[in-house]
């Protein structure tokens, strides 16, 4: 069934979008997202999809058009990066609150200024409160598979939330890799059809979207949203873990524990960096060092229980954060991981390494250095938040 293709992250996303055949795609170009939209435009121009492609005049309008289209009751996909995501920030919240299961690829890129076009996570992390489900992907294969999973998770009746499919700008978006693909029919079966309960196009039974909410109901609407997010966790787990069974593709889960069972020290990382870390773990394990890796795929909702279990036996943890929350105490992943373990029975030492901002390369040597520092520390490591690979430290 699976056919290997050489696809970049962008092309994998475009190809998956083609196979999903959504009703509407509305997007605006931004580096490093453009290739996905260009590829998809070709599918449209060649009549390979039924999609209405809306080339809007800004990212703000891209998400706004997606909201209009999704409210009109169909499947909608878009993509953006960095300042584009920042520009649509306001409407990103609206999409989640209107409970519209839009799927959006974010080719993670640093935010200005100074202007920079390379990969870091500050764009998506900035929207972590917005009510979107966020999945971070290691490579093009994951991007491809996650597109289908995202549709299933977002459209689940207990969830009804938009999903952000994150992957690293350039590192994943522009890198060609082998991707095992499904055939079109298999995708069609897997994602099924989307028939929402209400639609703006239903002129027989008219609905009002987005009214003014006074303080007598706003709180309740937010509480519903929280509940949907809570539901999203088991739903996502179910969708991810059953994916291999249903499609014959790889196994997935909301987190990935790599050699953690007997690890003394572990790194927590997202996206492509987790791949490089696996490479290092393999090498160090061959030298008999008890090192492990926790890759977090689902960042929103944050898998508190899973993270706590995965790190239960570890003595020292280093979190790798590819974004900073200026003036905060460490990066967002760090805060979440510490928070998850605050009340845990056994609490490992946890330190934070902010790295790779603006796409500064992180290589095997850097990661091995982090492991070695953890291994050589006697007891808890000193210094909570450090900067990895910045010149001058």
């Amino acid at each position: 069934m699976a056919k290997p293709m050489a696809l970049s992250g962008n092309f994998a996303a475009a190809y998956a979008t083609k196979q999903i055949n959504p009703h509407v795609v509305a997007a605006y170009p931004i580096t490093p997202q453009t290739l996905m939209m260009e590829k998809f435009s070709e599918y449209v121009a060649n009549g390979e999809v039924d999609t209405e492609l809306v080339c809007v005049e800004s990212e703000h309008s891209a998400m706004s058009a997606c909201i209009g289209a999704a409210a009109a009751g169909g499947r909608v996909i878009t993509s953006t990066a960095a300042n584009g995501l920042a520009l649509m920030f306001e409407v990103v919240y609206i999409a989640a609150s209107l409970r519209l299961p839009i799927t959006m690829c974010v080719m993670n890129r640093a935010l200005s200024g100074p202007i920079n076009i390379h990969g870091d996570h500050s764009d998506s992390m900035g929207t972590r409160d917005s009510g979107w489900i966020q999945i971070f992907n290691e490579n093009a294969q994951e991007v491809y598979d996650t597109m289908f999973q995202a549709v299933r998770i977002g459209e689940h009746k207990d969830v009804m939330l938009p999903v952000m499919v994150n992957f690293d700008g350039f590192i994943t978006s522009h890198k060609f890799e082998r991707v095992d693909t499904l055939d079109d029919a298999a995708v069609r079966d897997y994602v099924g059809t989307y028939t929402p309960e209400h639609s703006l196009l239903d002129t027989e039974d008219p609905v009002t979207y987005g009214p003014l909410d006074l303080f007598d109901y706003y709180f309740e609407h937010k509480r519903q949203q929280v509940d949907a997010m809570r539901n999203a966790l088991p739903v996502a787990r179910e969708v991810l873990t059953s994916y291999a069974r249903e499609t014959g593709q790889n196994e997935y889960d909301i987190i990935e524990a790599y050699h953690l069972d007997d690890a003394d020290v572990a790194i927590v990382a997202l996206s492509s960096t987790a791949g490089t870390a696996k490479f290092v773990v393999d090498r160090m394990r061959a030298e008999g060092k008890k090192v492990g890796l926790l890759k977090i795929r689902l960042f929103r909702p944050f898998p508190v229980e899973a993270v706590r279990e995965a790190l239960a036996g570890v003595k020292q943890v280093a979190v790798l954060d590819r974004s900073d929350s200026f003036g905060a105490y460490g990066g967002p992943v760090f805060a979440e991981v510490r928070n998850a373990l605050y009340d845990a029975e056994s609490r490992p030492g946890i330190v934070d390494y902010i790295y790779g901002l603006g796409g500064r390369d992180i290589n095997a040597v850097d990661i091995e250095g982090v492991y070695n520092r953890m291994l050589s520390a006697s007891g808890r490591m000193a210094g909570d938040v450090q900067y990895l690979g910045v010149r001058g430290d």
Partner: protein
Amino acid sequence: MASLKELTEREERLTGGHRLCAGCGASIIVRQILQATNYPVVVSCATGCLEVSTTIYPYTAWKNPFIHNAFENSAVTCSGAEAMFRAKKRTGEIPADKKVKFIAFGGDGGTYDIGIQSLSGAMERGHDMLYVCYNNEAYMNTGIQRSSATPLGAATTTSPAGTVIPGKKEYPKDLTEVMAGHHLPYVCQASPGYFQDLIKKVETAMEIEGPKFMNTLSPCPRGWRHANDAAIRISKLAVDCCFWPLYEVRNDTYALTGQSKLIADGKKEKVPLAEYLKPQGRFKHLLAPKNKELLDSIQEEVDRRWERLVKLSKL
């Protein structure tokens, strides 16, 4: 054109029970437009008086599908729904012969200022929709702040008529002209006071495929400081003094309509601008003797724009 009596037989699509001010021009405009349309409609609306007062959870005054997204994106939200309509026709989920009209509403703030980009983009992309600006010439929802539609000399809370500065210092943006610069199939300007003309324009627009833009003057008793019952009176005066001419542009060809055409043809008297300003508190200071020069220069600008328009209609 359908007669008023015929229109009364259609179902009211905006119910009473909305919470706009007594005597508000916006709801008159919305009613006139919806009554003039015999198709099912889907409405999107920008944040503003109209949206806030007609859809207060859990109540809605709209009997047609309605979406409010944000302040700056009524046009593009509507275009998204329209794209979905086309997509679903293509996949067969919606019958190919089904007719639905898409109408986007926005106030002047949400159209002239913060929403102009979304509007410009949606019109340029050629979506089959009608955009209607109900222009009450300031941010009335937040409490009468100046917008780029506010006329020169008008007092607002951010362009107060003070001892040194007599109200807003800039002429209003001519958005109808800006939209005409987009080469759309149909652009027009209307006034609820001349409702026959307005209804006719809506009927025309509904039969044209592609992007349409309509600019309507929407009196606001609170912001303009006029009597509650004066909306219609004043919106007629605006046309009579040529401050708000009635005209349409079809495929780049200009034509004056209704009352304005009669004035251009010399069949009706053009009244002085002061007649229009008098009933409105926001212009009170302009009529003081010390501001005579300013008033004259505004009259000149109104005349200049009017004459230009007359020329364009003969181009």
